[in-house]
Every structure is written in C-alpha cells, then in structure tokens.
C-alpha cells in the first residue's frame, strides 16, 4: 500500500461554478484532446464508430434535474478527480503507482508501475478514475501537470486545458492551500463546498453553488412607477391623452 506525503506545499485544484456551467462539454473534450497526446497518452476509444462507443475520459459532464415543479432546476455537473488531501485511491495502490505529489498535492498515476488492478477506482467514491482497457493502466485527471509548469507556454496558458477552454468562466485553477489565493477567496465569497465531505477524503477541488435566482420566487419585483391615471376613459383614450404631447425630433 502507498503512503501519502505528510503535508503538501501547495494544494492545487479546481473551483467549479455550478451557477454558470451550461453543460457545453468544452471542459470534457478539451481535456480529452490535450491528454490524448499529453502525459496520459493514449486515451483510447473503444468501438468509436459502432454500437457502444466509449473511451477513457478524465473529465465528464453530467446534466440532471433536481427538485420538482417550480423549485426544479437543471444542473450541469462536471466531474473529475478532486485531488483529495487524503485520497484512498493512493493508499490502496499496491505498487506505488498512484501517488500524491508532495510539492503541489496533485494525485497522479505512474503508468510505468501501474499494474491495472483497479483497486484505486474501487476506492474512489467519486468515480474519478478511468481504466484504459487498451492501454492497460489507470488514467485520471493530472490537473494538466504537463501544462501548468510548462515553460514553453505563455504564462497565461499554464492552466489546465479545461480551464483554458471553459466559455462561461465556470472553471478556476489555483492553490487552495493559500487562503489569499484568488480561488480560495472565491470559495470563501461564494461558499464553495466539498463533494461528499462525510467520506473524509478532504477533496481539494471545490464546487460553487448556484446563486439565488432573481425570479418570482426570490427577489421582489420593482414596483412600476406608473403614472396616476384617470380610469374614467378607455385604455386607448388614456394612452392617447398621455402620448399627445409636443415631442422634438
């Protein structure tokens, strides 16, 4: 079984805004596209033109409804590795292939030592790991470790592919171990939350809840500053009386 570092210098992770995610799949396909040729290469596909097309994805978006009737809302929920502080997927690994980096907290799989036993995917309550059947090893979100430190990239491109692509700005990347970081501030301000905190794995990634809606169930509508009108005539007559004025062109 594999040990965890006692502490990590940083806690790199994602903050995902459920208020603005529209479920466009940009994070999923940009992730697949980057990683199919990056650290996790290959990300294989099975039966891609056939009856049951499927493959290895490190990030998936699920769309579903919560609540009934007027309280119902549609939620788009992107799901990937949360880079937990105490991830069971690492501690169950029999070969040390799964590990948590001491420097930044990223949970990675070493494909050279992974034996494809899948214990880690059973241990992860978030379903974040995907076994690549053709490649024979476990794959997972790397936080684009081959992008975020990439000195051949412009500094603004040193972010995970999903964050780079997200059109609504629903994905944020940074050090959640630093309370002063922009992502930590965002989590504080928007009351970001952990997925399944009761499991005790201390996810680093946070989700921001949908904001309160300004619909009829929430804010009170501004009262119309209507003119006091004389109700003795017809609607049209009253309107015409109001509109019959001197107007400059």
């Amino acid at each position: 079984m594999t040990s965890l570092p006692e502490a990590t210098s940083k806690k790199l992770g994602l903050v995902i805004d459920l208020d603005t995610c529209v479920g466009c799949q940009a994070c999923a396909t940009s992730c697949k596209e980057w990683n199919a040729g990056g650290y996790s290469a290959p990300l294989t596909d099975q039966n891609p033109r056939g009856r049951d097309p499927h493959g290895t994805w490190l990030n998936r978006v699920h769309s579903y409804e919560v609540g009934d009737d007027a309280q119902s809302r549609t939620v788009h929920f992107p799901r990937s590795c949360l880079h937990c502080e105490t991830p069971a997927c690492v501690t169950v690994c029999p070969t040390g292939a799964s590990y948590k980096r001491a420097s930044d907290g990223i949970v990675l799989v070493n494909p050279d030592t992974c034996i494809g036993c899948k214990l880690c995917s059973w241990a992860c309550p978030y379903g974040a790991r995907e076994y690549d059947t053709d490649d024979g090893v476990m794959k997972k979100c790397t936080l684009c470790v081959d992008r975020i430190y990439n000195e051949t990239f412009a500094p603004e491109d040193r972010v995970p592919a999903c964050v780079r692509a997200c059109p609504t700005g629903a994905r944020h990347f940074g050090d959640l171990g630093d309370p002063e970081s922009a992502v930590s501030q965002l989590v504080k301000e928007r009351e970001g939350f952990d997925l399944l905190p009761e499991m005790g794995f201390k996810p680093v990634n946070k989700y921001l809840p949908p904001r309160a809606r300004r619909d009829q169930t929430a804010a009170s509508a501004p009262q119309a500053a209507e003119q006091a009108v004389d109700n003795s005539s017809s609607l049209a007559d009253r309107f015409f009386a109001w509109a019959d004025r001197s107007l400059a062109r």
Partner: protein
Amino acid sequence: MLNREPDIALSEPSADEIKTTTCYMCACRCGIRVHLKDGRVRYIDGNRDHPINKGVLCGKGSAGIMTHYSPARLRAPMKRVGPRGSGEFEEITWDEALETATGWLKDVRARDPGKLAFFTGRDQSQALTGWFAQQYGTQNFAAHGGFCSVNMAAAGLYTFGGSFWEFGEPDWEHTQYFMLFGVAEDHASNPLKIELGKLKEKGVKIVAINPIRTGYGAIADEWIGIRPGTDGLFVGSLIHELMRAQKIDLEYLVRFTNAHWLVIDDPKGAGDGLFARDEAGQPLAFDKVTGALADATRTDIAPALVGTFKLPDGRSGRPSFALIAERFLTDEYNPDKVAAATAIPAETIRRIARELAHAAFEQQITLDIPWTDTAGRRHEKTTGRPVSMHAMRGISAHSNGFQTCRMLHLLQILLGSIDCPGGFRYKAPFPRPTPPPNKPARAVGPNAPLKGAPLGFPQGPEDLLVDSGGKPQRIDKAYSWDAPLAAHGLMHMVITNAATADPYPIDVLFMYMANMSWNSSMNIPAVLRHLTAKDERTGEYKIPKIIYSDAYSSEMVAYADLILPDTTYLERWDCISLLDRPISGADAPADAIRQPVVAPDRDVRGFQSVLLDLGARLRLPGFVTETGTPRYPGGYPDYIVHHERSPGIGSLAGFRGEDGKSYGRGAPNEKQLDAYIAGGCFHEHRLAPDQRYYKHANKAYLDWAKDAGFIGTSAPITFQLYLEPLQKFRQAARGHGAIQAPATHRTRIEKYFDPIPFWYPPFDGAPGENEAFPLSAITQRPMHMYHSWGSQNSWLRQITAENCLYINRARAQKLGIADGDWVWIKSPLGRVKGRVRLMEGVNPDTVWTWNAVGRRAGAAALDVDAPEATRGFLLNHLITELLPEREGGYRFSNSDPITGQAAWYDLRVSIEKAAPDEQGETWPQFVPLKRPVLADAEAAA
C-alpha cells in the same frame, strides 16, 4: 510504501508549430490555434486575441481534431455507377469530374440558365457562391437561410436595418436586463456563453423564454416555459402592459422611427394604409408647432403621435403609432387573455413588463461620449435604456415567425433600446437602410449573367419574381405570392418542386454541404422518392443531374451523380467577409480568414477553388480574363485578394491598398493574406468613440460606413414600425395596382401582410385546438453538436449517440408513459418511434428531442448498428413539406407566408406507447447506405 516521485516531463512543447485559423465546427467562427506536431494536429485551443471567442473554445471546437481526422472524409471525386441512392460510385480524376460538370452546366446555360438550381447549405462563402449564380445567370440560388432563420434576418432588416446574432448583439457591458428567446444553443455559442457568465457575476437578470429548460435556460434567473409558437402573444402582452403603464420612449420614437408618419385612411382606395407623401415623395407628419402637415423627416418639427389629420387631397391620415397603439391596447393582448394560450401566468407577464420598464426607465445609462446626429446636432452625452434581447430559431421557425420577430423588435424600439448604451447594438456592416434597397435579380436569358444578385428584398408586388399570370419564376417559389419576402430562398422546397415540375422541371441540381436527403429536409421519405423518381416516358430521373460537394459521407452523397469532395476546415482557405456574414462586434467591424494549416492527404479540393475553376471552364464573365484565361488561377486565395465587387471593395476589408494601409476601400494588396495570417487570421477595425452608438442616426458612423463601402448612403436609417411594403402587397390582394395577387392567394395576403405586427396561430393548429395532435414537438441543439456534423465525430458521439423524446413528467404520467418507454410519435403525415425520457423543465404541452442526432444506417462511416441509426430518430419524417389543400386545391409549402421560412417548429403530434414487442428500435428504418470510398480509417487519430 513511499516511492520516490517519478521524474515526469513537465515542459514538453505542445507543438513544432502553432498556426492560427478559424474554427468551422459550427457557424460561430471562433479564432483557433492549431498545434502541429510531427505533421499532425496535436491540439486546438482558442485564440485569446480573437473578437469572437477571446480564447475560449466550446465542446465542439475542442473536439475538432476528430472531425478533421474523421474516417467519414471523402477521398476523391466520384461518379455514380449504380442506381441513384445505391451509394455505388467509382473514383474519377478531378479533370474528369470538372469536365463532366462543365459539360452539364455549359449546356444548361446555353438553353436556360434557370434550369440550374444552385443551393448551398451552411456555406460561409455566399459572397462567392451567390456571385457564381449571378454570373452564370440562374435566379435559382440560395443558401440555407430559408430553412434556418430568414424570419429573424428579414424581420430585422426590414424593421431596423439589423438583426440578432451576426447583425447585432446586446451591449453586454452595460445591459441591466437580458431576455433570451428560443435560442439554439449551437449558434453564437461562445460569445453568448462568455457573456452569460459575466452577466451572472454582475447580477444582471437573465430571463430565458423557451419551452425547454436546457443549457442557457438552466442558468437563467427566470425560465419561462412558454408554449411553442405563442411568443408573439407574450411579447404583444408585454407591449400592452408597457403602454398601459405609459412606459414608452416617445422621444426615441419620433426621432428614429416612422411612428409619426401619417397613414392614409381610405378603406376602398388604392392608397389605403400607405404613407401619405408630399409631391417629392417624402412622408408627411402633422407638426404640432405650425399646426400643419410637414415633411416627416424634417428635424425642426414637433410631430403628433395621435390624432386624425386631413390630407391635402381630402383623405385623412393618422400617425402610424396611433394605429399600433390601438392594436396592442385591445383586450387581445391583455395578460389575462393570453395567459392560457402562452402557458405564462398573467402576473408573470405583468411583472416582466414592470421589470423591463424599471430597467429601461429607472436605470437609464449616461456615458460621457459626445456624438453628433445626422442633423448635425452635437450631443454631449450618450444615454441609453439598458434592456437587451437575443432571439433565434424558437421565434423564427414558425409560420408566424416573421410577424413575431417584428413584434420583438417593436418592443425593443418602444423601450428606446436599439443601439444605445445597454441596449441591442448593431454590428457592422449594419445598420443598413430600411427597407433594404437591393431587389432580387430577374432571369435574363441564355448565356447571360443576371443584372444583380439573385437574393434581395422586395418592397412591393413589382419586385416579385412571377410571370404575367402570377406564376413563380424561381424553382423554390421565393419572391412569388407564396413567399414574397423570401430573402433567403426556400432551399427546403427545391427537391420537391423540381421533381414535381412545380413550377417547372430543372436540368441540374448543384448543392454544397447541405444534407437534403436527411436532417435538412421535411418529410424525408417523400424527398427520397423525389430524388430517385424517374420520368416514365424517358426513363430519366426527374431531377436529371445532381452535383454535390461535401467533405464527408453524409446521407446526401448517395443521391448525387457527381461528387466533388471538399476539404476539412483545417485544410482550406476561407473568407469570413463583410460582404457576407461577418464576425464584427458592435465596437469593431471585423472579418477573418481560414488558412490551410495542414495539407490534404487525399485527392480533395476546397469547394470555393473548385467553383472558381468551374466558372473559368464555363467562361463566366468575371471568372476569366479578356483573353479567356482563368482570372483567379490561384483558386480561392487568389480570388479573396484580387476580386473587387466594386472598385476598391473586395472580400476582406483589412490591409487594402497597395501599401496595405487602407481599410474597407482600397486596391488589392498582394500581401493581404500574409497580413491577416500575421494578425491571427482576422482583422478588427476599432470604431472611434463618437461612432459607437446610435449608428442609425450617427453622422460620424454613417459617413465612415459609406466611405468603407458598407452602405450606399449616409442618410439616417428610419425604423419601420409600420412596414409599408407589406401593405403594398395587401393592396395588390385587394385588387389595386398593375400587379395583383392571384385569387388563390388573396385571403392569405390580406390576412398575414399586416403592416403592424400581430400574432396568429401557427398553421399546424392553434394551441388547444388540435385535439388529435395535442402536443407541440420541437428540437433543441445539444451544445456539443452542430446539426448532423457532430454525430460522426468519434468523441462527440461518445457523449450523445442517440436521442430520446423528452416529455413533461406530469403529462407523461397522465398518458401512462414511464421513463424509458418506447413510444410512437404521430403526426398527420406518419409516425416515428423513439424512447422516452421524463423531465420537469419542459412545457407540459411540448415534447422535444435533440436535433439531427439520428442518422441513416451506413452514413458518416458509422457502423450499421450504431445507435444513431438503430435508436436515434428524426422528427423530420413527421413534418409535412406541403400544407393541406387550401382554396383551389393549392398546397402552400409549410413555411411562413411572408418569408418562406421553414416552419419546423409548428409540428403537432400525439404520443402512444409502443407495444411490448415494438421496444428497443426506432422506426422508420431505411436501407443502409453503402459506404462510398472514404479516407483511410487508419488516418484517424
């Protein structure tokens, strides 16, 4: 154990080379950076500098690599060797293909050029394709707008000289209230997503009006699950409420609209409903200062908006605004009266009207931007009413879409929110004059070009393309009495009309990237019959020859006789031109190019270069030099740089002039494409601060736009609240004028050609009146697919490989239908089988599915047992292309009566649970298509 962490490569370059170009995974046209490694595409991301996507890239664009390397790519030119539809082809050389096409087209041109029907699909080169048709001499040209959103384009252009999407956008920075109507989520996709995210951060209220709550609607503050086809009632009711509350910007109306123009009231006369004009033809208004009639366009008058005034000839006239107000103040648009039909509570309508009024009038914006109006008056500040709107297919794809869209613009204008801070802003080259001045060109004769572009904007019966008996002169019956303002043609009717020789047969059908034998047609079984129907006497196909260009093995390929294989979007030159559908923003006219970032590994050619080659072989004027040699021997890039539409005006506005320093107008510049590539494959021209707002009446802007070649005159653009051209058609239907409507069409023209917007029930039945088919059935676009293009992408189809029928949970329970059940979906035309999913976020009288996920077995290099074919389905099979017989046995097309817009969303259906032994597979099933010769599947990544 605690292993030493392995060393991993953290700084591998992503590419040997990064090239910029323009995405084509949908119609959004984002800037992309293509990372090339070892000669292959490694990765694609968004270009941060690009005005459309500002660096982001959607789910489609980020999967572009799999479309580029798709095994469904065609490999080489082909000629049909088996029966049409069999998919039996033989590869031929380009020379043989081009000579074959030239032979067919030359023969037709020498006899009757109109016997060529040239229709392009989601074509982004209409400035070229339309010009080819014009020079060839066929009036029978259009692109896909007739079955897409011509109602939006036409309603906007006739009303205020702009439109939603490509012709305008909300003032995202300043708007305080945003309404989103029936949006197709694959259109304008990244700009909308970027800005929705920002609006939410700023706390600006977003209201989504859509029968279905998916993507954008899901994050809106308020979702209004309207019943399909009733948006006009809702908008009319908002207008009713705003008028009742006296929340109308009267000053804006008299300044910028024809609200004060006097309309002749002369019920039996030829001039009834037309504008009263003086001897010079100028419209008249009543000036309250002088107490006399005056030229309504003068700026020194105080025009009356109400009253009845005697005209010099003794007739009387009323300001158009008074007529408009009377319409909307009737009880017909009272929220209490429209609540049941729209499925929107009256109190909600009243509240939305209050919120609109609050944002417009209590949150008025004033910017420190001085500007000068067309009368020469300087304004120290720019003020605006920060209410903005965006609308799309949900409004337009109904048979009442034109009038509904007009009504939406009327609402914007009554609030004073067009092209002001916080409102809805034009994107250059818009605004353009209203009504649009260019008319559709008429057929001339053998071997002769048309005298103008085939598409235009009629202003009265004299502009129709009909013969002396009123018979349509275009194959799609555009600009006939069936669809007088058919500004984008009716591509959805071409195959039906050609095969039934109604109004006449054609010789050659030439199409480009339009899947007309599948998801882009109504009543597909009938279309397939038409494509393969033979003349019993001659044994020849009723549509004798079909030429088709596509990059991929779409369903249409099997029905063509000659295939001209196109490149992928990463292998081609293209031009996103201000002459066509540009990528401008409100503050910056912009255009763009595509450059080939990889060379084709197959024997394919970009369609635009092929078209130029064909034009030269046909010796069309403009395509050859005086000595008969090709004018653009370098193909499309040669044309992009050197073609001049008028002196100094060409495909690209940037880097013109020999020194490359001119904008808009200037001599061709040999280095123009290099300059575009150096700038990221686009060019933006920033407007000066005083040109940014009120462009329709902004002297600095209009003068500049005229110089740049965007408009022919710098006169102010007057909003046509009251649309006189419609009344001219109506008068022709009442028996006035030299050109009169045929008897079969008079009732129809009288009813629908109302110069004041109004709501009428969609043709497939008023809400609640169609008991046999009680449910509306519509489609939505998955954000990660674009029509049928997405389902052949090996990644995107892993996300969605089959579509289901979504039904409101409570409604399904009443029908005894459970989640996962297979049901028959029935319309008067037939039935389709699909699997049901239940949801809350859908109007209870509406069912829906994802558009164009269902494919015909064998298409797109998918296996025959792919779920797209075995379980996925199209609603198209249920949509009739012809309406039931009307007077005289005439069957109008299933289209808007004014513009000919395909009325996809009028569909009404009933639902019935399938029998136990009918579960598990969709119906109808078609004979699997044989795969044409495709690019080596090994080439797929």
